[in-house]
């Protein structure tokens, strides 16, 4: 169990929890989605659910880039790297994600040249260090990581490094939120907005949620106090029948985002007409591909990509969990066939996936009360 004094401003946490109980003190049922996988992780880890009243339901959103990537894209990337001249470079998060023939790590064990990089610029460095090989960077992530891939591509082009390409799987958060709101089995009242994505895109892109969908959204930080304060801000709006975009995470997120990052993305990427999301299906204009000027560094133009499509195992209900229709434990495979050690679905792979977060922390609750409950 963690110690109470690890938390910043425990007295403020206590007051905020009290304020939440006061604001939610009616019969009303509140359904809020935290969009970002980082928030999902924090909510489970800190046991935030334990201190929220039962009529506040937190629904876990699609903001885990590893989790929403369809298995076919992993198979596509790995099939290109079957060529012994190709180095498959990706973030560590990707290494254990299962493809139909195994994960990148399992392919490495079978002899494929698979490398972990912690930055896109290090994938480019690999290309400089291995002039006789082709380095394919398997790029994933929302707007938090896409600008770094963009700058890396600008650098590759400026330096004329030709043995480097990007297999682009970057996705954008707004169309996913739009798809969730359009889903017929989804009833949502409010959003806890993503923190780090918003450092790049700012708060303005969420305005349609308030204006057209009449739902409040609060961009939030990741500390327990941040998330609780965001819940207070949402409850105040909901109780007053208001729908505004608010920014709880002002200390990091500027309202206009990061102009240099947006400029780099606009220089390198364009929107794909369609992209398949695991669990959400095909969403128009929801992902990025490389502009014509960067065709030479685009894996999908340099190589023949098989375009593999894989249906998720029928028993796995990743889609329903991703859309917030089912809780992780309601999936037939949860905790039995599908565990963090042997994941069937991607939601069990990443610590930001709701199934892994649920598996790792929710079980513990029976034995140890969270430190937060002692404060609040």
């Amino acid at each position, binding site marked *: 169990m963690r110690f109470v004094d690890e938390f910043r401003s425990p007295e403020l946490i206590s007051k905020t929890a009290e304020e939440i109980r006061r604001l939610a003190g009616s019969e009303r049922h509140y359904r809020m989605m935290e969009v970002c996988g980082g928030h999902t992780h924090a909510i489970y880890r800190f046991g935030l659910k334990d201190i929220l009243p039962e009529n506040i339901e937190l629904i876990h959103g699609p903001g885990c880039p590893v989790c929403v990537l369809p298995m076919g894209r992993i198979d596509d990337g790995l099939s290109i790297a079957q060529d012994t001249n190709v180095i498959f470079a990706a973030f*560590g998060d990707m290494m254990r994600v299962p493809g139909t023939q195994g994960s990148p790590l399992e392919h490495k064990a079978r002899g494929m040249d698979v490398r972990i990089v912690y930055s896109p610029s290090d994938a480019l460095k690999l290309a400089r260090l291995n002039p006789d090989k082709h380095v394919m960077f398997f790029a994933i992530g929302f707007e938090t990581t896409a600008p770094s891939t963009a700058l890396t591509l600008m650098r590759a082009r400026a330096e004329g490094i030709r043995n480097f390409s990007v297999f682009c799987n970057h996705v954008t958060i707004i169309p996913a939120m739009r798809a969730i709101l359009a889903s017929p089995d989804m009833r949502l009242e409010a959003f806890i907005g993503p923190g780090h994505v918003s450092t790049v895109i700012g708060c303005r892109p969420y305005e349609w949620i308030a204006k057209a969908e009449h739902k409040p959204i609060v961009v939030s930080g990741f*500390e327990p106090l941040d998330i609780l304060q965001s819940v207070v801000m949402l409850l105040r709006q909901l109780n007053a029948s208001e729908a505004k975009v608010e920014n709880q995470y002002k200390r990091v997120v*500027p309202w206009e985002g990061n102009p240099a990052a947006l400029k780099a993305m606009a220089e390198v990427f364009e929107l794909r007409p369609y992209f398949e999301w695991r669990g959400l299906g095909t969403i128009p204009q929801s992902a990025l591909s490389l502009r014509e000027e960067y065709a030479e560094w685009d894996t999908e133009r340099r190589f023949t990509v098989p375009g593999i499509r894989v249906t998720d195992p029928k028993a796995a209900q990743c889609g329903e969990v991703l859309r917030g229709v089912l809780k992780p434990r309601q999936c037939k495979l949860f905790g039995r066939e599908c565990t963090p050690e042997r994941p069937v679905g991607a939601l069990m792979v990443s610590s930001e996936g709701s199934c892994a977060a649920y598996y790792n922390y929710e079980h513990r609750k029976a034995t140890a009360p969270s430190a937060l409950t002692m404060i609040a």
Partner: protein
Amino acid sequence: MCLAIPGKIIEVSSLISAPPGQESSWSPSSALVEVAGVRRRIDLGLLEDDKPVPGDWVLIHVGFAMSKISEQDAADQMNTLRMLGEIDGAMQEVEGYGLEDVN
């Protein structure tokens, strides 16, 4: 990958010289940062509009400084990473920047 790691700028330098004809649009720079005692080079290209100077604190995503933050926010963020059980992952990431501790 989705971690935001706080680091202190130690030294700012130019990363590569601009190719001929692209000097105006292309001036990437990098910085030596310190994260919990570990020093690595990160990219400053995404803070072109608001360049940090030595002594400033930044949040780092996948080897790129993404935003400037206060020293207090940096300490709070480190504490959040620790409480989230992500500190080992964060340090592994930082140590891996520049391919130094991997492959």
